[in-house]
């Protein structure tokens, strides 16, 4: 059986994007007002000089001022007047283009090119912490963990008090399964008492370690203080809200999430959506939702919870482009493709891409085996399942391995072996009602897939049971079983 990402324990771990995307998506900006009187006068004077004496000197002076003052109309006017054989090189003209601030769609870039680009820059100018950080991110995406850590260490040495570097370094440590190191990076910065963004990360990272941060009281005081803008406190309030929910205090959690949603980052919106599905009575206001840029995960979750698999997959693809090293979007995409949409080739593609940066991830390895089996590539599926079984550590993972082994056995014609594996999976899942139901549903689907008979009572029983669970996973399985019943022209209630 395939597995989605674990929805029970989302933590507010910072995103790790390019530095430019990070500041654009996380930092609040006030809309640009009109130019101040001095800037306007200076620009007007340069414009007058250029019009009176159009030469490269007055043109360059005006263009430089227009870029610095953000006078896009003047930049456009000067550029439009350029003769065809302008002495300004195209590269410089390109650099002086003012980008569209609203164009924030994530672009999937070739990491190999990014790595070459970063290295060539750093060879000439090594004093560039954000470029080291970008190199580290690109190396993480291609699965070169050791080098990625080394590059991040240089970034940290060069900018030990830079928030973006510190949060990215913490994110990398979490990605590498070392939250303890993430915590120590943050604590060693000496900035936790004054930077709510870093404090939010520390609290979430400590929570990942199943511990409580020693900074909780300080964090609460910061949230209650009026010292910071709502955007600056958004992640901290959401991190505290997540901790309150964990400790069972859903009322406090709701209040904190309400505070977090005053001016949230997309990560906070996704966290609030998750919290709303996990016991906290909170809703993301429509205007907040609409105003949140880069909300790919939130979109993905929203469509997933609503059963709109296509929309969910589209948003997940953007989420994956936004954070190509993260296991969660690739797990989600491989799961939705395989289980809800039965598009196994696509599922294989997502799982493979996710495995580049997460080669020892159990879920991705298992989902790859599951999708490959459906495509009839049984030998390769077996190899991946073997690798998955080697890294399976929890009882859930062992159940999943057994169920996928059952699928492989049935697909290879070993009916008896398949039944044995599914029975083992069911036995392993006995304490978890939904897991047991899922194993049974997957087994029934597989048996139908290989042409085995499944009684109408069993199918309708499964449908009844799945209907009780208001979970997206049960909805996906329900739809598939319902389709199977329809194929057999058996009567059933289509509505879940």
């Amino acid at each position, binding site marked *: 059986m395939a597995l989605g990402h674990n929805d029970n324990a989302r933590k507010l771990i910072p995103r790790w994007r390019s530095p430019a995307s990070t500041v654009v998506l996380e930092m609040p900006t006030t809309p640009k007002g009109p130019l101040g009187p001095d800037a306007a006068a200076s620009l007007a004077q340069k414009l007058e000089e250029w019009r009176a004496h159009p030469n490269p000197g007055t043109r360059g002076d005006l263009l430089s001022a227009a870029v610095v003052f953000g006078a896009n109309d003047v930049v456009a006017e000067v550029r439009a007047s350029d003769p065809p054989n302008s002495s*300004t090189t195209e590269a410089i003209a390109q650099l002086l283009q003012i980008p569209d601030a609203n164009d924030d769609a994530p672009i999937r870039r070739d990491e190999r090119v990014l790595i070459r680009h970063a290295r060539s820059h750093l060879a000439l100018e090594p004093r560039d912490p954000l470029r080291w950080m970008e190199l580290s991110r690109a190396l993480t995406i291609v699965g070169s963990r050791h080098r990625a850590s080394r590059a991040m260490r240089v970034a940290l040495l060069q900018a030990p008090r830079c928030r973006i570097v510190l949060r990215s370094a913490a994110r990398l440590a979490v990605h590498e399964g070392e939250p303890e190191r993430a915590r120590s990076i943050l604590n060693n910065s000496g900035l936790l008492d004054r930077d709510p963004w870093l404090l939010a990360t520390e609290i979430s990272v400590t929570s990942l370690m199943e511990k409580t941060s020693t900074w909780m009281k300080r964090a609460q005081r910061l949230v209650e203080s009026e010292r910071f803008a709502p955007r600056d406190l958004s992640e901290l309030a959401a991190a505290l809200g997540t901790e309150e929910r964990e400790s069972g205090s859903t009322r406090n959690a709701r209040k904190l999430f309400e505070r977090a949603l005053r001016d949230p980052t997309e990560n906070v919106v996704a966290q609030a959506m998750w919290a709303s599905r996990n016991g906290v009575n909170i809703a993301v206001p429509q205007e907040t939702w609409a105003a949140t840029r880069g909300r790919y995960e939130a979109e993905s979750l929203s469509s997933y919870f609503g059963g709109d698999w296509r929309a969910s997959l589209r948003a997940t693809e953007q989420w994956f482009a936004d954070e190509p090293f993260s296991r969660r979007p690739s797990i989600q995409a491989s799961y939705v493709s395989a289980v809800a949409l039965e598009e196994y080739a696509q599922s294989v593609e997502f799982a493979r891409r996710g495995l580049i940066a997460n080669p020892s991830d159990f879920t991705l390895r298992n989902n790859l085996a599951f999708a490959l089996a459906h495509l009839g590539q049984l030998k390769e599926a077996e190899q991946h399942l073997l690798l998955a079984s080697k890294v399976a550590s929890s009882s859930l993972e062992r159940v999943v391995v057994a169920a996928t082994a059952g699928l492989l056995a049935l697909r290879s014609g070993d009916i008896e072996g398949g039944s044995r594996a599914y029975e083992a999976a069911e036995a392993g899942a006995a304490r978890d009602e939904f897991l047991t139901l899922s194993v049974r549903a997957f087994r029934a689907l597989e048996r139908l897939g290989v042409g085995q008979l499944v009684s109408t009572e069993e199918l309708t029983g499964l449908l009844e049971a799945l209907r009780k669970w208001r979970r997206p996973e049960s909805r996906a399985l329900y739809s598939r079983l319902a389709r199977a019943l329809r194929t057999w022209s058996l009567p059933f209630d289509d509505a879940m």
Partner: protein
Amino acid sequence: MDLDTGWHVDGMVARPAGATGGCFSDAYRVSRADGAQGFLKALDFSRALDVPDPVPWFQAFTTAYLFERDILAACDARRLDRIVRSIAHGYADVDQTPLLGRVPYIIFERAEQDVGSALILVGTVDLAWRLRSLHHVATALFQLHQNGIAHQDVKASNVLLFKSAGSKVADLGCASVRGGSAPRDGLAFAGDPAHAAPEGLYGYVDPEWNVRRIGCDAYHLGSLLVFLFSQASMTALLYAGIPEPMRPEHGVKFEEALPHLQTAFSSAVATVETAFPTEVKSDLSAIVRELCYPDPRERGRTRKHLERIGPLTMQRYVTRFDFLARRAEALVRRA
């Protein structure tokens, strides 16, 4: 009109002379009976009539005038031959209006044109000319620094071309004097924002005069180099590479923005390199990397000597530009 210093006013220069000390000035062509030509900068007190609060305006105006007059006299006395000389100064009685009728002026030696305007001859203005001009500007800055003066507003329009003497630096209105006080000392940056060093735009003021002022001049020299080859200031190229929320108008602190400036700087230099002629590309790139490095505390250090700490000095840039200019001149002679 004849002036009491023996000069005759021939006519007004159409192009505005620019702001001085937050005040306004007009420019005129002047000549003397012996054939000497000059450029007169007249301070127009009558503009005070348009200012809502004229008292501080008068104060700033007169302080700026006196500062520039005295500093030019000091430069002249010390024979700083790469600074545009002031030939005379005084008052012109333009009418009988009390106070406003007496216009203070400074007469400078007259240049052919400024460096920026000369770039209209691009294609015929060769590499050797640009490098020699940069050598002259570096020399001017070195001369000023040796005398405890930092210019603070070096840009193409403040570098004037003389037929026989080559390039000289003009407009000391924004200058700062080591151990002294100058009208613009209280500002994070004194000159034109379009050419300002990044620390100035972010309001960072280093406690050390050398870092603060010589660092600013070094940046301007590097930015002038960039301008002469790309027709854009390094400040504009840096600015274009900084993500919008990290720009100074959003109240971001310099330390916070510095990592972004470092990345923008590395990209800007890589782009500017495309405009450098192949024969001097690596030399000019290295000079820009040293002079325009966004952190003033590390400005002037080379990639290979990151740990070297010593006062930033223009001397080595005088030598380097001279060497490059000689090489380019030799190439021109051979061609």
